[in-house]
């Protein structure tokens, strides 16, 4: 029973937030709706027993991709004064969204400990006793080790490439040299002088 309620809740919120993602006028709101949709999709994955994909959704999509989207959206030419003008007005919605996210995490975890809907047997004929994170790990680090390492090299190349193509040496900028700062002693930097009256100080 609780699983069915959780399923309909998650599914409904995914659909609604998906619709809001594309119908919001403000791109920032769109991204926030998208994050909500990802969270709920993660809840659905938990229900079908794919907890690994659920975590990937939260970590990769919410944690990385959605934040990246937000950055891009923020880079766009948006009138922030206009946005701030509505802050009080939208505060309620923001609060509701935050509460919804927390509540969904609680419901998701609750449904998971209650046993989950038995969709998993049809979706993927896997061993229920072994969590699928363990199963995927077992395959990735034994059977598919070679290409797993290869994929690591691909990511390394992507990183090197991004740095090679965009990194610039900025000449003329001054950096803080902490070691030099720490090595400097008061006696090198300060001088105790007792100037004669009317003589001034030699610098």
């Amino acid at each position, binding site marked *: 029973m609780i699983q069915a309620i959780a399923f309909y809740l998650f599914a409904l919120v995914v659909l609604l937030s998906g619709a809001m993602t594309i119908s919001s006028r403000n791109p920032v709101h769109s991204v926030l709706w998208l994050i909500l949709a990802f969270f709920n999709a993660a809840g659905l994955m938990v229900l079908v027993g794919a907890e690994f994909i659920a975590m990937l959704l939260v970590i990769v999509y919410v944690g990385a991709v959605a934040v990246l989207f937000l950055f891009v959206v923020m880079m766009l030419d948006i009138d922030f004064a206009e946005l701030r003008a509505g802050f009080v007005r939208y505060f309620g919605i923001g609060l509701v969204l935050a509460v919804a996210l927390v509540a969904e995490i609680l419901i998701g975890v609750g449904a998971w400990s209650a046993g989950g809907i038995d969709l998993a047997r049809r979706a993927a004929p896997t061993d229920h006793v072994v969590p699928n994170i363990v199963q995927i790990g077992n395959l990735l680090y034994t059977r598919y080790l070679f290409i797993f390492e290869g994929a690591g090299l691909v990511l390394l190349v992507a990183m090197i490439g991004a740095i*090679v193509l965009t990194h610039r040496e900025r000449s003329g900028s001054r950096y803080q040299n902490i070691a030099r700062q720490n090595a400097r002693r008061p006696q090198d930097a300060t001088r105790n002088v007792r100037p004669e009256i009317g003589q001034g100080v030699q610098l």
Partner: protein
Amino acid sequence: MDYAANLAMTLPELVLAVGAIALMLVAAWGGPASTKAVSWVSVAVLGGALIALTGPASAGGDAFYGLYRADAFAAFAKVLIYIGAAVAILMAPDFFRRTAGADLRPEYPVLILLSACGMGMMVSAGDLLTLYVGLELQSLAAYVLASFMRQDTRSAEAGLKYFVLGALASGILLYGISLVYGFTGSTMFDEIAGAYAAAPLTGSGRSLGLLFGLVFVFAGLAFKISAVPFHMWTPDVYEGAPTPVTAFFASAPKVAAIALAVRVAIEAMGPAEVQWRQIVIFASLASILLGAVAAIGQQNVKRLLAYSSINNVGFALIGLAAGTPEGVASVMTYMTIYLAMTLGSFLVVLQMRDADGQPIETIDSLAGLSRTRPGLAAALAIFMFSLAGIPPLFGFYAKFAVFYAAVQAGLFPLAVVGVVFSVIGAYYYLRLVKTMYFDEPTGTFGAGDKLEGGLIAVAAVFVSPLGYLAIPALSAWTLAAANSLF
């Protein structure tokens, strides 16, 4: 099979990956000052990988549950790949030092090493996943290399074009792979071959999913070998990329992609030979024709060589269309000789610089080269005659081998049309020779680098009639490589 044996079979890739990562650390801390050292050590790492090929890597069998295949075919392709990569590293310092606005950073050899590692995975693939990861490793490094001269807008454009079109091709390939996986139930080449043998491929009850998968996989591979109709990126990328990088693109990745296509065609989709042969024959004839006709109007040497590489891929595919061990052996023979001709030609292009040392790329600037730099002109003439397939030179033997294999397999019309089209191609190669030998000199090139001169001499000697001395060894080796696929 224990873990150490698996690792021993993948030793060449291990050497390259570990070497590249270690050199990356040197590059990160050493900065641009370490470029020279990193370049030389990279060449040594490639040499080490070459030595590692002599062990279980050349005939060990399957490693990592069939993901990786260490056989004579892979070993042969890897020898060519490592040579191409090493020459690409060696030819870079002089170019980047003299060209204004270009600086060689130590990441260049590191990226080439990683790309070579990816190419090794490609040619050793025993599984569609290995194929894809290897291909992406090679391509991703290549995209970065194409735009390595980031102040140069043409180089940036080349990198962007290559990246966007390459991503599209990867998408097509992945779509094909997913179809093949869905309809065969496996990503392993052996099991895919079994599924193709068992499924009906002709008649009204044929498995459309398998056929669509085959078409998409071949379309994706055709992009990587730049065969018509997936060649559009080639001239722009070859023209825009820095010349050493262009030489690299035209040599090692091309050999790897051709070897990969051969392996997929024979090992994974061998039972569907009748089906893929149509695709290969079309791509081959279209590449030969387009490569020959479109090159005629070109004024830029690098664009001309890009069309030349499209043209040559067409000839190599004729050998694949035969589908026999002799056909595969002729493809590998062709790629060996093609490697020498192409690297030699690009090394000559590198010598084309004005008095200030800036590179020039127009064909007109070659006018009268026979009087100003007779040695260089003779070398380029040898490469051009050889690319055109004119008899005393080694390029003739390459074309002869593929046509002979096609005739042996009963593909007379294909061979005849190929020969006719190769005559069209000869026109623009000979135009270059005519410009060098019969036109009045317009200027002279600055002095060249000794190392590059030596490499040109080696390539020219290999391509010259002296190369025929290598035929017994070459044919025995390529046939052994080809037989390991069947």
